[in-house]
């Protein structure tokens, strides 16, 4: 199977190992026998959203996200159309904020997102950081990660993590986190969340296959180190939750 990945603004929205989500997905798909091509879209550049099997934007600073939003507005209708057509997408960190209606910056400026979702973002002057341990409706294993944001996101009706036992969610500590609609995955969790969560990686890959009308092959390449790394972090964070 040929898979086209479109990495949006890789040199702008690149905080804390954001690129690794693409690296690990590519390797996973290639391990399944897919021929993967990764195209990049730079601000001001051209990209065909409709041809992408997987669209990805990583985390940036609030200023970088503001700049990204200006350019990304050009692609808003195409992204919404593709999302409605079950295209698979991941928006990590501040990129998630661009999917909503508006983003209010700490200095008072308000700019528009692409309106794929009805939520709104209000950035503040306090950094909200800390480990996150939660659960999604998509699979039983815990989701682990780290939150590094200054925003409160209100009005998310379909969160990615329906339960957050530790750490910051969209609006509050231990509140739901992220956004999930059709095959659009979004989370403010920092950096390489597909690396840290092998099951989420599998879920995203399965969505790419499903859109092509195929199921993930039963025999799939294992990733010993990803599994072990996840197990250690999951154990450490669970201990914290239970203490």
């Amino acid at each position, binding site marked *: 199977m040929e898979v086209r990945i479109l990495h949006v603004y890789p040199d702008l929205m690149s905080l804390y190992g954001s690129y690794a989500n693409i690296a690990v997905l590519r390797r996973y798909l290639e391990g399944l026998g897919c021929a993967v091509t990764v195209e990049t879209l730079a601000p001001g550049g051209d990209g065909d959203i409709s041809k992408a099997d997987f669209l990805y934007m990583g985390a940036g600073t609030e200023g970088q996200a503001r700049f990204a939003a200006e350019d990304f507005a050009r692609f808003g209708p195409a992204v919404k159309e593709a999302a409605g057509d079950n295209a698979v997408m991941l928006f990590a960190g501040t990129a998630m904020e661009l999917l909503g209606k508006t983003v209010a910056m700490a200095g008072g400026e308000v700019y528009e997102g692409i309106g794929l979702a009805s939520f709104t973002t209000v950035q503040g002057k306090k950094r909200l950081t800390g480990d996150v341990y939660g659960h999604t409706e998509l699979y039983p294993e815990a989701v682990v990660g780290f939150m590094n944001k200054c925003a409160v996101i209100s009005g998310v009706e379909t969160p990615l993590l329906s339960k957050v036992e530790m750490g910051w969610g969209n609006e509050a500590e231990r509140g739901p986190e992220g956004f999930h609609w059709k095959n659009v995955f979004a989370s403010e969790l920092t950096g390489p969340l597909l690396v*840290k969560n092998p099951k989420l990686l599998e879920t995203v890959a399965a969505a790419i296959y499903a859109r092509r009308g195929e199921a993930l092959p039963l025999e799939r390449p294992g990733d010993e180190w990803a599994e072990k790394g996840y197990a250690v972090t999951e154990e450490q964070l669970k201990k914290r939750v239970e203490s």
Partner: protein
Amino acid sequence: MRKILAVILCKLGRAAGKLVGKGSSLPGKLALKICPDILGRVELPKHIIAVTGSNGKTSTVEMIASILRADGKTVVYNEEGSNQIEGVTTLVLTHADLRGRVKADVLLIESDERYAAHTFRFFHPTEFVVTNLYRDQLTRNGHPEWVYDSILPALHPDTELILNADDPLSSCFGRGREGVKWFGLDRCAIDLERPSGVYHDGARCPVCRSSMEYDYVHYNHIGAFRCTNPACGHQKPRTDYTVTAVDLDRCELVLDGGTKISLAFPSIYNVYNILAAYAACRECGVGEQTAAGVLGSYLLKNGRMQTFRLGGHHGTLLTSKHENSIAYDTNLRYIAGRKTDCSVLVIVDAVSRKYFTSETSWLWDIDFGQLNVPHVKKVVLSGRYCSDLAQRFSFTELSNWFVTPDISAAAAELKAAGDEELYVVTCFSDRDKLLAHVEKEG
């Protein structure tokens, strides 16, 4: 009255703390409770030098103190590194008389970058050195632009800024200000044509977000940057204090085209720390020869580099802050630049010594691929997060890496065989777990 009480209690608290080996923040905290504006009520020395930034603060401050003392000046500085307002308050009050007068020529402050604005609420430095701003400690710092915004209110209009001309972000502090002194490196033999590393924070202009070009870089995105947007004009400024040549193999640098300085540790980091210290001291009236004399072969006391023996291996500990990819990259570049066969031990056991976190995103920002050179014979990955390290290494071209989760076992295995050089790359939080198994030198 509250001022005198605060001074007395701080002095007593500090003396008691020293007896029981406690840190230096608590007495200052107590004093601030008694008299919140105590730092505005004391009489401070004529020169107040502050140093902040992501990397190199402690080393730079240490060198500045040595140079100033060699010049005959009395210097008060936070040698123990307590660099938030409580530690600074302890420092000031323990060196003040009961009327709050600090009798010294210079008050030298290493300042935490996130809390500089808080520290300098009641007084401001006469000279403020910002070493650089990189990705560092994301678990508390957010990101470099967040730190930039935190430092900005600490920069009083009357303060003379001493800034790194080669850093696209921290150099923004100088925009629109007069009298800024710039330090930086000219094109040197060690330079690269384009930014290095697995991410590129200098790809976009921090002012207008247009793409940036580089004439050369010294490491990562630090070098001769230039925004491509003519209306913006953000670019490397002309330097006032300049390293005009660097030869890391011969452990030598040249200052301002004339003065040669020997490097005790041939790292590009060390070059910048030396240059920042030199610039600050020259701005305080120290002569070129006095400053250069101290800096020549200056040995840092902060123990970030330590040599040892482990079985047949001669070892070097290269302390690299976890959560700081450029610190790692610089030490990996140092190893890659050696000539003799070596093994490398990378340890990530506790991400921080101060707080708990399982956050390992920062591993993906480190260019471990630099170790893919013939003389690096083996890389051993150890510590609680060794599997995260292994996952990261599996995305490099390297194949000669091995995982030994237990640090004692890793040390024992290395001790049992081989006599090649050994480099240990880890953080303050983890280094003693290895040093417990070695014979230290010096």
